[in-house]
């Protein structure tokens, strides 16, 4: 790691005021310190936000939950309210990382973790995300784990989070605080596609701090599934993951949500295609149509063509599982 200075504010405004362009906020640190050891990131100052009052899970006035940015992944996944009312989120979190990492990693940090693209992580190779304009060796290189949707000439990396796939399906809201005050960002607008600025993973302005994530009252606790397909059974990033959520009226779809992980620079959804299924029987024909719509325009590379068919089957399977209950 490069040398850096350290600050430990106790208030949110104080933390935000300490920020400089060469600073990074640190909480769990499980991704940031790894990136610093790999010489991918070299901040001059770390602002330790772990003493800020952002550790609670509170009920909101509209019947949802407000999750403080510092709530650890373990505490969130095992919170009785989350397990009971938002099982999709609990299952998504527990599908990611290892118990040790989940004990340190925070809600805010999970949103901000960076891609595990091999070339991004290897500071000796070009990478448009790490060093804009240097090129993307992944396009013609090792790209088994890379994107099939929403990629650009400049970047084919995927967002690595499981938790975010669950949050995307649940239509969460991200609360951030900057020097200009507080902002609420719809989850779908928080992460971004790489386009011509692959160095930007999300829509945060410099110095803005994630303070909370809000879950709406609608929780899909009766019919939901998180399905994660990976190269080994545990402790691996997703090749494809699916957060599926249904509201059923008898056997008829009243509401459906599907978010995909491991396939794009952000959790992938298609609300228009979801809406087309309302009123249809909850069967494999309908699920297959939604899968086709979600994967419309998918383009694979040398090593990851298989992901397109894998994703299609995973979507149908996850939705079929969700019909059975919360799995």
């Amino acid at each position, binding site marked *: 790691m490069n*040398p850096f200075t*350290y600050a430990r504010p106790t208030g949110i405004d104080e933390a935000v005021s300490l920020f400089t362009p060469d600073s990074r906020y640190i909480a769990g640190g*499980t991704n940031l310190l790894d990136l610093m050891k790999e010489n991918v990131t070299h901040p001059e100052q770390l602002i330790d936000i772990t003493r800020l009052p952002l550790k609670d899970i509170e009920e909101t006035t509209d019947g949802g939950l407000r999750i403080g940015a510092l709530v650890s992944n373990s505490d969130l996944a*095992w919170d009785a309210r989350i397990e009971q009312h938002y099982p999709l989120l609990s299952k998504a979190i527990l599908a990611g990382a290892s*118990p040790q990492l989940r004990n340190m990693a925070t809600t805010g940090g999970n949103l901000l973790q960076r891609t595990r693209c091999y070339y991004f992580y290897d500071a000796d190779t070009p990478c448009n995300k790490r060093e804009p304009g240097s090129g993307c060796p992944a396009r013609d290189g090792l790209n088994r784990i890379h994107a099939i949707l929403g990629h650009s000439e400049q970047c084919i990396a995927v967002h690595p989070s499981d938790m975010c796939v669950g949050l995307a399906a649940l239509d969460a809201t991200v609360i951030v605080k900057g020097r200009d005050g507080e902002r609420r960002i719809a989850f779908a607008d928080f992460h971004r596609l790489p386009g011509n600025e692959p160095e930007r993973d999300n829509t945060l302005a410099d110095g803005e701090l994630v303070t909370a994530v809000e879950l709406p009252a609608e929780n899909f606790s009766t019919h939901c599934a998180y399905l994660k397909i990976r190269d080994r*059974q545990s402790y691996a990033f997703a090749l494809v993951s699916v957060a599926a959520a249904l509201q059923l009226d008898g056997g008829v779809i009243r509401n459906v949500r599907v978010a995909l992980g491991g396939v794009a620079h952000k959790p992938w959804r298609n609300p228009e295609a979801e809406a087309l299924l309302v009123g249809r029987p909850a069967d494999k024909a309908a699920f297959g149509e939604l899968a086709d719509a979600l994967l419309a325009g998918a383009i694979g590379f040398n090593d990851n063509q298989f992901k397109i068919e894998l994703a299609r089957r995973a979507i149908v399977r996850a939705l079929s599982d969700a019909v059975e209950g919360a799995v």
Partner: protein
Amino acid sequence: MSSTKDHSGVTTVATYPIAIEINGKPQQLDVHPWTTLLDLLREQIGLTGTKKGCDHGQCGACTVLLNGKRINSCLTIAVMHDGASLTTVEGLASGDDLHPMQAAFVKHDAFQCGYCTPGQLCSAVGMTAEGRAETSDELREHMSGNLCRCGAYPNILSAIEEAMPATREQLERDKGVSR
């Protein structure tokens, strides 16, 4: 923060004071901000039981119990843990009496080279405290953050299964003491 000036008067080295309890012993330490908890233990304090495997949070050899919870000590910096209580593998036994988890690892021959063992032990104790894993499949899943390159997994699992009830009792007793 305290800094020293080099011969040209440039401030170069900053350390920060922290108070941390390690295996029941309170310590006052000065640390560089980039010193990981793992390097603090091994290099600054001389507690080399905690192992550095990958140094990237992938192998679990560096697992310790921070305020009772298992974490990867390689992926956190010591300066952030002012006021914390830490248990390493050296702190599991009571004098010459092995912790039930350690005794079970010996009984079941739950290692070959032993390099992953300190992390396996701390992780297994942390998992027991979490109380979320019961069946063999759940135990395997909940121990997936600890790799064993020798492949001693079957015996590690047997050891953990045998030692969990006694570990649970010990955790309850320790809770009573700290109350």
